[in-house]
């Protein structure tokens, strides 16, 4: 699995993905990890299929016991169906996830990890001195959905917002925004159900200082491309399956 360090100062952000050994029939996913002091947060740690390559990749950068926190933006299998395995690897960890999905997520098998239900309005945690905010993104696409914002690193982990469907060998960063649009258009039109929810999220996110917007599929937006994405998303009609 490919590992890209996207921020490196007093704390670090890593992106894991583009796994060449992944079965072709499953969607490629990006997993993220923030390491700060003796703690680490794994974000959208992925499905059962990517558990072993993910753990292997992590062990080059952090100890198992260092992973004290997990975050699931929502309940989908590509986000967190590995929960039952993490539960055995990290029995003392805390899972931060939408309160709405607790009873559903426990179906993946959670006997040891502690569940921290994020309230509708969002919340924050202090991870080894770094403040991380859970930003509401409800209905984008799940009915209980959050993103993670790091004001120090100016990174927004944006879950399925900004996602693109493309090959595992695709570059990590968006290089040409206009060229990238066709790869993400259908995804947003079909998976995002509500224009109202979309606009609510855009107005919230425009207030944040973002240098990197890091989605769970596809490429990371950096610098001006973040604003390009917000402008493009704002004018996009979503929920198109209803004719």
């Amino acid at each position: 699995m490919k590992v890209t360090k996207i921020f490196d100062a007093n704390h670090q952000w890593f992106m894991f993905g583009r796994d060449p050994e992944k079965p072709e029939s499953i969607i490629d996913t990006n997993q993220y990890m923030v390491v700060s002091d003796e703690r680490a947060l794994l974000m959208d740690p992925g499905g059962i299929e990517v558990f072993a390559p993910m753990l292997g990749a992590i062990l080059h950068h952090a100890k198992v016991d260092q992973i004290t926190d997990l975050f699931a933006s929502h309940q989908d299998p590509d986000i967190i169906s590995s929960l039952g395995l993490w539960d055995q690897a990290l029995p003392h960890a805390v899972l931060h996830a939408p309160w709405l999905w607790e009873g559903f997520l426990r179906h993946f098998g959670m006997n040891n990890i502690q569940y921290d239900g994020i309230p509708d309005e969002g919340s924050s945690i202090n991870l080894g001195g770094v403040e991380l905010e859970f930003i509401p993104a409800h209905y984008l696409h799940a009915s209980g959905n959050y993103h993670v914002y790091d004001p120090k690193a100016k990174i927004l982990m944006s879950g399925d917002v900004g996602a693109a469907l493309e090959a595992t060998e695709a570059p990590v960063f968006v290089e040409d925004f206009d060229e990238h649009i066709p790869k993400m258009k259908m995804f947003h039109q079909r998976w995002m159900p509500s224009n109202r929810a979309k606009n609510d999220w855009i107005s919230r996110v425009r207030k944040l200082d973002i240098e990197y917007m890091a989605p769970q599929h596809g490429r990371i937006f950096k610098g001006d491309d973040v604003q390009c994405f917000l402008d493009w998303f704002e004018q996009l009609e979503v929920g198109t399956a209803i004719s």
Partner: protein
Amino acid sequence: MSADTHNNEDKLVALASIAAELHSVMNVAWGVSLAAKNAKVISAQAGDKGLGFQPITDFIDEISQLAIKGVNDINESAMRLSKIAVDEQRSYDAYKRFDSVRKKHQGAAYIASMSSAMGRSENHMIDAFKEFKTSLNNLFALLEEMDEQMLSARAVASVSRIVTSDAAEFRSKLEVVANDLDNAAVFIKDKISDSYQHLDRVRSLTREQAL
């Protein structure tokens, strides 16, 4: 314990089959219980002619209650075994993946930090395996107990037929009860025999796993 010979999926199917076999037993046992209550009424109506049959009706009722309890206990035990098998499978899945990480990422800076997680999964797997074997023996004992009860039920049915010969005009009604009891006991014994076969399969898969 060999990790490559895990047959938990087959074990889960066999355990579910026991529950399915016994589902029909429950209905039959309830039927016998009802028949025993009817027999009590008939023997009361028969007065002196039904005197010999009256204590037998209590016995038939007791047997049906034991069969109902037996089915519940066996189902509970089979469910418990399924749960242990699922737990064991989960630990095995985790262990297998930890092991693949250990082999593939020997050069990783923090590979040693995984050893406690591996040890935990291994211990959990071993504990679950031991618990499974104990619970399996318990389930065999419950099936044996029920099998013996059905032998007693058949003996009671035979005695009932003899006793009803003195019941004059109530004889045919009481004979029906005796025959129902016998048929029920034969049916339940058949189901227990099928359950034994499923359980033997579980036992043989467990032995393979232990090798």
